[in-house]
C-alpha cells in the first residue's frame, strides 16, 4: 500500500501529460462545440442566383416519381436527365429527413457520378455534384456509396472546372468525403487532391468559396489512427498559415480547427506545427471575442502543451499563460474545462514551468475554478493540482496551499466522479510527502481536519470502489491513525529461543 504514495513520483513527465485520448466509446451526444464533420447543402434560395439554372423558372417545379427519375437518368434525353438529377437533388436538399437511403437504393449514384464528367453540360454537372454532396453528407454508409460510385477522381478533376460554382460544389463534396474518416481522407490525398485544392486559394477567391476550401482543408487534416500523411500536411501548412491571417472569422475558425487536428497527435506532429512558428498567432487568437475562433485556438494550443517539455515551453513563450486566466473565468464551462486541461499539462512539466504558472499569477484562478467552476472544469483543475504537487518543489507546493487550494479541493472529495476522488486522494498523499520534508505533517493533518477533509476521507473508507477505499485507508492509517505494519516473517526457533546463526555469502553492493 505504501507504494501508493510513490506512484506519481515514479511516473515520468510524459505519463502525467494527458493527451486528448478521449475514450473511443462515447455516451454523450456529440458536442455542438466540435467542428461539423459533414454538411448538406440545403440553401434552396441560392439556386435562383445560379446562372446554370437561370433558365428554369424556380416556381415551376416539375415533380417526378422515383421510378421516373431512374428512367430519365438512364435514358439519353439530356433535358430529362437534368430534370431527374435536379429532382433528386431537391429531394436530398429538403430540410428534414432527406431520403438518402432510398436514393442510394435506386442505384443511380454511379450514373450521377458519370454526369460529373459531362464537361459539355455544366448544369448537369452542377446538379449531380450537389446531389452527390448531399448523399455524401450522410452516414459512413452513404459516403461509401458515393466513393464506390467512383466520385473521388471525378470531383478532383472538377476542381479545375472553368465554372466556379462547380468547383465550389466539388470542394464541398470532397470535404464531406474527407470528413468521413482517415480511410477516405487518405484516398483523396493519394489521388492528389491537395495541389488543385490549394490552387483555389488566392486573393481573388470570393470569401464564401474560400470558406468552403478552408473547411475541406481542415477535414483533410482531421482524424487520427492514422493521422494524415506527413508530406500532405507539409503541403497544406503554408496555406493554412496564410488563411489564419484572414479577416473572415469563419475562415480563421476553420483554419484553427485544422491546426487543432494537426496538433492532436504524437509529439512529432506537434513539432511540425511548432516549427512553423505559428504559436504566437494561435495564442493571439485565444484572445478572440469570437467563440468560434477562440475555441479551436485553445484546442490547438492545448494540444501543443501535451507535447514535450520544449514544445510546452514554446507555448509558454508564445504567451499562453497570460491568456489562460480569462479563459478559466469564461462563462462557458467547456472553455473553462479546456483551459484547465491545458494548464494541467503545463503543470505536468518540470518545476521551472510550474514556477512560471505561479509567476503568471494563475493559482488564484485555479482555486476559483476548483471552488466555483462547473464539474467538468473542476475535474481538470484537480489534475492541475495533482500534477503540480507531483512535479513541484516543496516551496511551490507550499505556495499552492497558500493560494487556498485545499478547501475547494477537499470539497470535491464528495464529487460524484470516482477518478476525480482518486486523483484528489493521491494529491493529498503528495502533499503529505511535502509536509514530511518540512516536518509539518501534523500541521497538515490539522488543516485537513479543519477543512472537513478528514471526515470526507473517512467516509471514503466505505466507498464501493476498491482503489478509492484502499487509498483513503492508507492515508488515514499513515497520517491519522498511526502506522500500519507489513510483516515479512523469517527465521526458525531453536531450543525454545531464536537461534543466532548465519552462513556467509559473497557480498557485492
Amino acid at each position: 500500500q505504501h507504494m501508493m504514495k510513490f506512484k506519481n513520483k515514479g511516473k515520468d513527465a510524459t505519463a502525467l501529460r494527458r493527451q486528448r485520448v478521449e475514450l473511443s466509446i462515447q455516451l454523450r451526444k456529440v458536442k455542438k462545440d466540435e467542428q461539423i464533420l459533414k454538411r448538406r447543402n440545403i440553401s434552396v434560395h441560392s439556386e435562383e442566383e445560379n446562372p446554370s439554372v437561370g433558365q428554369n423558372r424556380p416556381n415551376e417545379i416539375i415533380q417526378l416519381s422515383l421510378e421516373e427519375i431512374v428512367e430519365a437518368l438512364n435514358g439519353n434525353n439530356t433535358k430529362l436527365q437534368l430534370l431527374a438529377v435536379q429532382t433528386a437533388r431537391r429531394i436530398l436538399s429538403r430540410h428534414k429527413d432527406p431520403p438518402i437511403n432510398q436514393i442510394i437504393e435506386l442505384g443511380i449514384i454511379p450514373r450521377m457520378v458519370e454526369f460529373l464528367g459531362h464537361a459539355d453540360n455544366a448544369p448537369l454537372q452542377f446538379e449531380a455534384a450537389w446531389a452527390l454532396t448531399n448523399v455524401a453528407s450522410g452516414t459512413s454508409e452513404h459516403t461509401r456509396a458515393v466513393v464506390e460510385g467512383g466520385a473521388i477522381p471525378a470531383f478532383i478533376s472538377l476542381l479545375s472546372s472553368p465554372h466556379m460554382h462547380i468547383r465550389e460544389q466539388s470542394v464541398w463534396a470532397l470535404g464531406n468525403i474527407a470528413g468521413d474518416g482517415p480511410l477516405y481522407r487518405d484516398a483523396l490525398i493519394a489521388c492528389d487532391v491537395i495541389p488543385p485544392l490549394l490552387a483555389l486559394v488566392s486573393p481573388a477567391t470570393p470569401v464564401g468559396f474560400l470558406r468552403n476550401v478552408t473547411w475541406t482543408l481542415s477535414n483533410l487534416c482531421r482524424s487520427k489512427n492514422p493521422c494524415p500523411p506527413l508530406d500532405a500536411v507539409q503541403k497544406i501548412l503554408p496555406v493554412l498559415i496564410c488563411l489564419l491571417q484572414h479577416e473572415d472569422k469563419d475562415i480563421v475558425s476553420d483554419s484553427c480547427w485544422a491546426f487543432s487536428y494537426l496538433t492532436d497527435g504524437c509529439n512529432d506532429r506537434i513539432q511540425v506545427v511548432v516549427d512553423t512558428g505559428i504559436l504566437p498567432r494561435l495564442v493571439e487568437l485565444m484572445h478572440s471575442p469570437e467563440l468560434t475562433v477562440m475555441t479551436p485556438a485553445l484546442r490547438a494550443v492545448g494540444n501543443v502543451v501535451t507535447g514535450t517539455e520544449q514544445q510546452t515551453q514554446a507555448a509558454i513563450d508564445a504567451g499562453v499563460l497570460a491568456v489562460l486566466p480569462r479563459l478559466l473565468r469564461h462563462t462557458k464551462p467547456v472553455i473553462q474545462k479546456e483551459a484547465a486541461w491545458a494548464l494541467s499539462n503545463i503543470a505536468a512539466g518540470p518545476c521551472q514551468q510550474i514556477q512560471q504558472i505561479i509567476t503568471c499569477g494563475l493559482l488564484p484562478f485555479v482555486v476559483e475554478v476548483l471552488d466555483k467552476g462547473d464539474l467538468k472544469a473542476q475535474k481538470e483543475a484537480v489534475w492541475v493540482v495533482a500534477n503540480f504537487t507531483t512535479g513541484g518543489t516543496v516551496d511551490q507546493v507550499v505556495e499552492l496551499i497558500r493560494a487556498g487550494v485545499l478547501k475547494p479541493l477537499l470539497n470535491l472529495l464528495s464529487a460524484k466522479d470516482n477518478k476525480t476522488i482518486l486523483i484528489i486522494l493521491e494529491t493529498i498523499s503528495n502533499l503529505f510527502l511535502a509536509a514530511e520534508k518540512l516536518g509539518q505533517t501534523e500541521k497538515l493533518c490539522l488543516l485537513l481536519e479543519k477543512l472537513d477533509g478528514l471526515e470526507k476521507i473517512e467516509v471514503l473508507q466505505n466507498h464501493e470502489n476498491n482503489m478509492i477505499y484502499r487509498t483513503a485507508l492508507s492515508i488515514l492509517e499513515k497520517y491519522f491513525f498511526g502506522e500500519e505494519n507489513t510483516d515479512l516473517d523469517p527465521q526458525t526457533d531453536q531450543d525454545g529461543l531464536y537461534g543466532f546463526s548465519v552462513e556467509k555469502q559473497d557480498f557485492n553492493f
Partner: protein
Amino acid sequence: MELSDANLQTLTEYLKKTLDPDPAIRRPAEKFLESVEGSQNYPLLLLTLLEKSQENVIKVCASVTFKNYIKRNWRIVEDEPNKICESDRIAIKANIVPLMLSSPEQIQKQLSDAISIIGREDFPQKWPDLLTEMVNRFQSGDFHVINGVLRTAHSLFKRYRHEFKSNELWTEIKLVLDAFALPLTNLFKATIELCSTHANDASALKVLFSSLILIAKLFYSLNFQDLPEFFEDNMETWMTNFHSLLTLDNKLLQTDDEEEAGLLELLKSQICDNAALYAQKYDEEFQPYLPRFVTAIWNLLVTTGQEVKYDLLVSNAIQFLASVCERPHYKHLFEDQNTLTSICEKVIVPNMEFRAADEEAFEDNSEEYIRRDLEGSDIDTRRRAACDLVRGLCKFFEGPVTGIFSGYVNSMLQEYAKNPSVNWKHKDAAIYLVTSLASKAQTQKHGITQANELVNLTEFFVNHIQPDLKSATVNEFPVLKADGIKYIMIFRNQVPKEQLLVSIPLLINHLQAESIVVHTYAAHALERLFTMRGTNNATFITAAEMAPFVEVLLTNLFKALTLPGSSENEYIMKAIMRSFSLLQESIIPYIPSVITQLTQKLLAVSKNPSKPHFNHYMFESICLSIRITCKANPEAVGSFEEALFLVFTEILQNDVQEFIPYVFQVMSLLLEMHKNEIPSSYMALFPHLLQPVLWERTGNIPPLVRLLQAFLERGASTIASAAADKIPGLLGVFQKLIASKANDHQGFYLLNSIIEHMPPESVDQYRKQIFILLFQRLQNSKTTKFIKSFLVFINLYCVRYGALALQEIFDSIQPKMFGMVLEKIIIPEIQKVSGQVEKKICAVGITKILTECPPMMDTEYTKLWIPLLQALIGLFELPEDDTIPDEEHFIDIEDTPGYQTAFSQLAFAGKKEHDPVGQMVNNPRIHLAQSLHKLSTACPGRVRSMLSTSLNAEALQYLQGYLQAASVTLL
C-alpha cells in the same frame, strides 16, 4: 452426477442435514456437498430442486446453496481449472432468468444475486441475450416479473456508480443503453400512468411504487458515468415525471410505522439523489429544470413530518439544497429575503429540534449519542444536514442568515424563559443554532478555529450558558447541561480566559451528574481545556490556577468512574491522565489513594479488556504517577513495584494480550528509575523475555525491545556474568527483527544497546556473525530505513571499538570489504541519516575512520579519504531537521507517530533520548578539526597536501572554519 430422481433424492437428504443444528450431522453434510460440487450437473440438480421440490425449506436451501456455489465457482481464474463445465454454464444461463422470474420472492432474491454474479463475469460478451430476455419481460404486464427484472438489472448495473471509466466499461454501458434505455423509459411512463389508474388500489400501488423505486435507481446507475445521449434527449420525460412524483402524495401509501421509511419516502429520496446527480454533474443541461426541483424539494421539506422514517428523505433533500445554494449561478434562487427567511424558519429550525428519538438516545444509548454529537459521526442525520445547509447559505448570505437566526434564537430563548421545564427544548435548539452558525472550521484538537464574527459568543456564553451550569441542581435539564458544557468545549478558543477559569469549578461539579452524557462531557471539556496552549507554549491553564481545585477534581474524577454506566469511561480516564500531567507534583499527596484505585481498576478490567482507549489512558495515568512521584523521591519506585507487580504477574500469566505491551513499558519505566544494579526480581524475568512466542506478536516488539534495552543499560554486566548462555538467544531476537523490513530498526535499537553496554569480551565470538547478517540484509533487500540504521550502527561500533577494529573485522569477512562499504554505502548514503544524535554518532565515527585508521592513510583505501571527508562535511552542513520538542503533555495519543499498534505506545512511559557520544564529544565539527590536527602532527604535510589537491573549494572553506573555531592549524 446424472439428472436422476435418485440423485435429487440424495441431494435433498444432504441439504436437509445442512440445516441441522447439530454440528455432528451438519458438518459431514456440508463436506459431502463440497465434495460433489465439482461434478457435472450438480448446479442443475440444485436448480431442479429449488423449482420442483415438494418442501419449501428445501427449495430455499437449494437456492441459497446454488447462489453460494455460483459465488465460489463461476469466475474462471487464469491458470486454474474451470470449476464448472461448459454445458452446465450454458444450461444455467439459459434457464436462470425465467426460473428467477417465476419463483417466489425469497428464492427470486437468491437467484437474482446469482444472476448478477454470473453477469459480472459473463455479461455482456458471454451472455448476449440476457438484456433482450429481460427487456422482453417489460411487456408482460406482470409486475411481479417486471420487478424481478428490474431488481436483477439494478444488481447488474449498480457497479457503474463506482467503477472508473474505461473503454470496456463504457462499451458495456453503451450496449445496455442501446437495449435498455428506451424500454425503461416506456416502462417508466406506463408505470406512472398505471399509478393514476390504480390510484385507489393500495396493493397495486405498492407493487407499482416498488417498480418506480427500482426504475429511479436504475436511472441513477445508467446516468452516473456520463450523461447518455438518450437521457439527454429524453430529459423532459424523466425530469417532468420525477418532479411530479416529488410532489405526489397518496394516503394509501402512507405508512403508520414511525421508524421504517415507506415506499413513497424511498422513491422521493432516490429522486433527490437523481436530481443532485444531475445538478452536480450535468449542470449545463439540467439548468432549465433545476429551479423547479429546488422549489419542489423545499416544499417537500416544509411538509414532511418529524418522524424517523423521513430522516433519509429529509437529509437527502436538505443536502440537495445545501449543494445547490453554494453554486454561484444559483445564488439568485435563494437571494430573496423571504426565501431565506422561509428556508431558515421552515427547513433549518425544525430539523434542528431535539426530537423524541434524540432524547431516547441521550438517556438510554448515551455512548452512541456521544459518538454522534461529539465525534461527528452524524453524517446522515437531519441536524447535520441542517447544519450543512446553514454553512452553505453562509457562503453568500452570512449577514442575512445570521440576522434571521438571531431573531429566532431570541424568540426561542424567550419561550424557554417563560416555562423552562416545558420549553427546555427551545433552548437546546437555540444553542445548537448558535453553534452551527458560529462555527466555520473545527478540529478535535483545537475546537472551533474559525468563527462567524457576527455572533457574539462571549455574550451568549455569559448570559445563557453559565447560568445553567451555575444552577445548584446538577441533574436538572441534563440536555441543556450537556449543551452548555459542549459550548465551552468547542468555543474554548473564543471565550476569554477569565470566563474559562470561572467555568472550571462548574465543570468539576458536573462530573457528579447522574447523566452519563453530562459527566462525560464535563470530563472531556476539562481534558480539552487542560490541553490548550498558552503563550510560550506552556499550558494555557496553569497548575497554579488549578491549585484550589486539585482535591475536588481528583475526587470527582475517580468518583465519576463509579457512576452507573461509566466504569470504563474513556473520557474520564483521559481527563485523569491530563489532570496528572497538568498538576504534576501537586498530585503527590494523593498518590497512595490514586494508585490503589488505579490498580484496582486495572485488576478489574484485565479480566476482560474491552475499551482500548480507556485502558490506554489508564496505563498512561499509572506512568505519570510513577514519573511524577519518583522525580521528587526516587526511593518511591519500590512502593510502586510493590503495588503493581502482583497485577502485572497476573496479566503476564494469564497472557492478557492487550495489556502485555503496556506492562513491558511500565516495567521499563520502573527499571530505569533504579539507579544501581538491576534488582534480582527483574533478572528472573529476563529469560522469559526472549521467548519467541512473545516476539511473534508485532504489538509486543517495540515495548519488549525497550525493556531489553533497559536491562542492557542497567544490567549488562549481570547478564554477561549470570546469563551468558542467554546471549545467543538475545542475538537471535536481533536476527529475527533484522530480517523484517518493518522491524529492522527495532533490531538495531537492540544491537546498539548490546554494543554500547555489553562487556566486549562477552560478545566477541559473535561480532563477525553480526556483520555477516547485516551485510546479507544489505545485499538482498536494502531499504533506506535499513541503510540509515546500518550507518548509525557501524559508526557507533567504530566509536566503541575503534576505527581499526571496524576495518579489520570487515576485511576479515571478505578482502577489501571495508573499502566497498565506504565507497558504496557510507559515502553516498551518509546524508540520509536523520536525527541529531544519529548524525552526531556518524560524525564522530567517520572522524575516527579518517584520523585513527592507518590503512586509510597508506593502502589503496587512501583514495577514499577525501571523498569520505567531503561526505562528512556534507553531513555537517545539511540543515538540521527532525527535532521533536519534549512536550509530552500535549501529545495526543492519536498522533503519536511510528509504532505498530497505535494504542500500544505510552507517551508518558517515554524514553529520554540517549546520546552515547554525549560525554565524549560536544561539538563534532570541533572534534573533527582537533582530530585532523592530531593526525597532521603524526604525519606532517600529508593531510594538507591531500586537502589542497582534492577537496572541493566549498568543503575546504567549511573545514577552515572548523579549524579556526577549534584554534588549530594543520601541519
